[in-house]
């Protein structure tokens, strides 16, 4: 439902000293200024990666680099470094592509991990499991070099809680998802809108662990969300 719209908008138009706009407004496709497109323009993937790594350290996020073949080992090592016994991960076909199926086996896990894979059919149990899990694992959909950000798109097997409720968060960052900054991510999302596609109900730009500076401006991590975060960058092409 939309309530009270006409009078509200009429008033705005009147105050602006003109009638209501009836034709679609042509938003300037080129604003006079466009500094956002110049940042890291023309940087190679390798350069973007080093910007990303540097920024991750600035925002208290551990960052590791690996080839696709050693990803399972590096991931297991990271989980163990967090003393992680229970794990929740999103249901993302890319996990299998990266050879993580045995690591994420939910029955008789060969590594002794208690693994839950987000399953919409199980409803609220997913959230309970996320709340109890030591570690949440998701794969970045778009990665922003400048700000050390992973972008997670929700939907189906990709629950919002995976990156939010567990004490530790691990993001797997395929190198191919790396772009200079939020500008490119926004453009990609907008292209989907222009094509008439639905966009996910939740798009999260995550830069490091949850933190706050509300007590005497002291930075404290893990106020509400994860206490620690790691990005594992994997070369995927």
């Amino acid at each position: 439902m939309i309530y009270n719209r006409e009078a509200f908008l009429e008033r705005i138009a009147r105050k602006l000293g003109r009638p209501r706009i009836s034709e679609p407004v042509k938003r300037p496709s080129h604003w006079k200024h466009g500094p956002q497109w110049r940042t890291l323009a023309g940087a190679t993937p390798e350069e973007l990666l080093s910007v990303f790594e540097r920024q991750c350290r600035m925002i208290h996020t551990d960052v590791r680099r690996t080839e696709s073949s050693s990803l399972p080992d590096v991931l297991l090592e990271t989980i163990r470094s967090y003393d992680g016994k229970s794990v929740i991960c999103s249901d993302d076909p890319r996990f299998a592509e990266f050879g993580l199926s045995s690591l994420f086996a939910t029955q008789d896990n060969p590594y002794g991990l208690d693994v839950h894979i987000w399953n919409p059919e199980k409803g609220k149990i997913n959230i309970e499991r996320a709340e109890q899990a030591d570690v949440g694992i998701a794969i970045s959909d778009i990665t922003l070099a400048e700000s050390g950000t992973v972008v997670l798109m929700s939907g189906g097997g990709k629950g919002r809680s995976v990156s939010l409720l567990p004490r530790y968060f691990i993001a797997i960052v395929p190198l191919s998802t790396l772009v200079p900054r939020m500008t490119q991510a926004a453009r990609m999302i907008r292209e989907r809108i222009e094509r008439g596609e639905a966009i996910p109900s939740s798009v999260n730009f995550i830069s490091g662990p949850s933190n706050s500076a509300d007590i005497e401006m002291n930075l404290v991590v893990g106020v509400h969300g994860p206490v620690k975060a790691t990005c594992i960058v994997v070369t995927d092409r």
Partner: protein
Amino acid sequence: MGIQFGDVVFYRRVDKGIRDQFMRSAVRAAQERMRTSRLRAAEELGDWEEWRRLGEEIRRHTLEHLDYYLEQLSDRVHALGGHVFFAQTAEEATSYIRDVVQKRDARRIVKSKSMVTEEISLNDVLEAIGCRVVETDLGEYILQVDDHDPPSHIVGPSVHKDRERIRRVFAEKLGYTGSAEPEEMTAFVRQQLRPDFLTAEVGITGCNFAVAESGTVCLVTNEGNGRLVTSLPPVHIAVMGMERIVPTWEELEVMVGLLCRSAVGQKLTSYINCLTGPKAAGDVDGPEEFHLVIIDNGRSDILGTEFQSVLQCIRCGACLNVCPVYRHIGGQAYGSIYSGPIGAVLSPLLGGEDLYRELPYASSLCAACTEACPVNIPLHDLLIRHRQKTAEEKRQSPLGERLAMKAFGMVAESPRLYRWGTKLARTALLPWEEDGVIRQGPGPLQPWTSIRDLPSPERETFREWFENRRKRGERP
């Protein structure tokens, strides 16, 4: 709490602020740190002036076409299965939200920090119908636990409190037994709030920006409480000031970048959460019911006036962090949830000129605020306009000031009276003098001398000095 809080007499609030030595040093330190981080972030970005002009251009364009973009936004949200309520007044907004809560028979509500819900006194309305409303932003939570102490900064509402005060409040109100270490107190709050998130029936947030084209609401936080509030409860109500809108994701991105850098000096805060409608089919977490409440509450009266540019504001607080007046009196002295230079411009417009007539005078007009603003709002010009309006159009400057100026006019017009007056001034003010400075001046001087020193009138008036020099044969 509404836009207004505290003592209604401005000078008394200022006096309280000036006397609070701890608050002053805490505010000064916070101000310094935020200002430095902002400058560093702007420098890292490069082309800062160009960025500001882009920010300004986007905000202006959106305001000029506000009815169009709001229509587009509401159509979008509706198409996604959400509800949109346009509220002309605070009462309309709160009664709609109350109805939504009552229809769900909800009692437990979690909120993430939002200025506009403070502006419309939403918590009071919900508490009056028996709801428990928990502020989940750490700074807001501290204020709420401390008997609803008013905020003193737009971005860091509790910057005026030190760790020991916070520890004491937690101990008294929540039975906290730990130390005053920020880490330990934060961990305690985490434990306290987790069950609230998991059991809340309604989550309420503000809206940093809404995207017209996609119907998206964007929340900018560091703590992630905005994510919890919008992921776990079955109902999400987002409340937005009608001007907080951008055309598309491409402008959203620019504004978010400007906000994060200007507010806290970060490239992006830890969480930028973009929500489009209620949860989609197949989603487990996320709200099944989504309401967007779009609030006017006096904003449309600013459109088309000389103050229109104030609606460009993105609530980053950068102007507070450079303001010498804010530094001395603290945010609570403004008596409005909107403090600092932006508060001095905005509060009289939204909260009523009668209530906030003095605020535009709480400025040195040094223009540091204008220079710091990421969207080029000419704040100090707007402060002068306010003063002009008060002085000229309304002819309602405070009575004492008018009488004093009138008397000064009479005296200054007559050379003899003027000579007599300036001689007399020194004798008349002697009781208040201390080391050549008037400390707690009488009558109309009091507000001035309580804030800063007023040198005593010279023993020798200028005319006497001139005469004496002439007599001594010195060349003028």
